[in-house]
């Protein structure tokens, strides 16, 4: 066995230390990143019991968020702040994945994707629509209905989920559609139709038709809300699109607020089509 020289040993120790540090960080990140579930892999089961309403169904009331870790402390006047040191990771980004389009629509998606900075409606303060608006940030629940509330970059949005009801036929199609709900055991299933075609389903040119049908599944487990979305579009999709699963945490220290108004002022300054995506 060759003996390592002093210098090699120091280097070796440094390398091993760095390796252990990296692996440890990977582990911490993996534990913290419960939001980024893929392929149905789920976080450890709840450590607290799932609360219920008087009717016996799970209580989904509350503020739900995909934030990682504790709330970021508010900076005090006169206090210096350096993002490079603080390394804020308070908001988890979510990539829902991509649907499979029929071959005749692939070129259109590519074209919209390339021109996203010019044509993505969400970049011009338009409503994100369902499902792009994401999981509800706050839920108000009664036996008859649930209200989903959103504080979005593009404004405050709400959806009323009517329980055990039929879809309305007397209203115009809209960005967030018409939502009805039912309980399947522990899971709240929300069925969304009447979606107009003005929105994108997500980033990267994911347009859709006015025949889009969205099914959301919400299941509370302790203080975690599992949120799954399936999008059907018989006009443009080759197959239903099951988005990646999301796990949201109950936020007891945070309250949804009014969104400042949205005013798009960047478009006139754009010099090229570069962008970094808008995954939501």
């Amino acid at each position, binding site marked *: *066995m060759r003996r*390592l020289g002093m210098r090699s040993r120091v280097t*070796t120790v440094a*390398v091993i230390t*760095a*390796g252990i540090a*990296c*692996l440890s960080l*990977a582990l911490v*990140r*993996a*534990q913290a990143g419960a939001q*980024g*579930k*893929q392929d149905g*892999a*789920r*976080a450890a089961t709840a450590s607290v019991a799932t609360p219920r309403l008087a009717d016996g169904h799970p209580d989904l009331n509350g503020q739900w968020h995909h934030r990682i870790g504790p*709330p*970021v402390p*508010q*900076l*005090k*006047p*006169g206090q*210096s*702040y*350096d*993002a*490079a040191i603080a390394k*804020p990771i*308070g*908001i988890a*980004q*979510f*990539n829902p994945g991509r649907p499979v389009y029929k071959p005749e629509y692939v070129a259109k998606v590519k074209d919209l994707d390339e021109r*996203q*900075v010019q044509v993505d409606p969400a*970049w011009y*303060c338009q409503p994100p629509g369902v499902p792009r608006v994401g999981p509800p940030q706050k839920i108000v629940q009664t036996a008859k209905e649930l209200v989903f509330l959103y504080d979005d*970059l*593009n404004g405050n949005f709400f959806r009323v989920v009517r329980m055990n009801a039929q879809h309305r036929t007397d209203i115009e199609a809209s960005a967030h559609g018409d939502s009805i709900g039912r309980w399947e055991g522990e899971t709240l299933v929300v069925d969304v139709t009447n979606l107009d075609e003005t929105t994108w389903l997500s*980033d990267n040119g994911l347009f859709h038709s006015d025949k889009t049908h969205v099914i959301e599944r919400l299941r509370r487990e302790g203080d975690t809300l599992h949120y799954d979305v399936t999008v059907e579009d018989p006009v443009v999709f080759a197959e239903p699109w099951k988005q990646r699963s999301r796990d949201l945490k109950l936020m007891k220290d945070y309250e949804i607020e009014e*969104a*400042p*108004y*949205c*005013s*798009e*002022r*960047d478009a006139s*300054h*754009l*010099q*090229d089509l*570069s*962008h*970094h*995506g808008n*995954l939501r």
Partner: protein
Amino acid sequence: MRPGRKFTVAPGLAPGGPLLDNLGAYPEMPMKTIFAALVACFVTVFALPAAAHHSLTAEFDPNSTVTVKGVMTSIEWINPHIYIYFDVADKDGKTSQYAVETFPPNHMRSRYGLTKQVLSGDFDKKQTLVVEVNPAKNGKPLGWLTKITYPDGHFIKLTAEPGSPEAR
């Protein structure tokens, strides 16, 4: 690494184990390979998924930093981007407006803990602040905020450049 997957540490690599002696038994493993693996590990751990509201690199030059000195006149706490306005004097003393753009309000609060009040500093004193920005590519008096330094020396540094993970 996907969350939820079991993470195991190989026997012999556990901290406190006979690390150095074991390593000596693998003299053929080139240090380059180890370094490459480490780099790969760090890249994997720290790579963040891309996300942004707007096309910052289409609008601002991430490779250029401009320092602007001026008096803050107002903050528009709006979506999708906050605007901070400064009166900037040229060498002849003539002032003109310079607009500084930064993250959306809920991003500022939940990610950085920054409020409009904190950003304002001693607004009423109309002091001259030093602001570093990535300038607009079209030459307009507009930039993306990277650092703002107040007269007492305290500062708020948000990001190195548009397009970096922190600017998303």
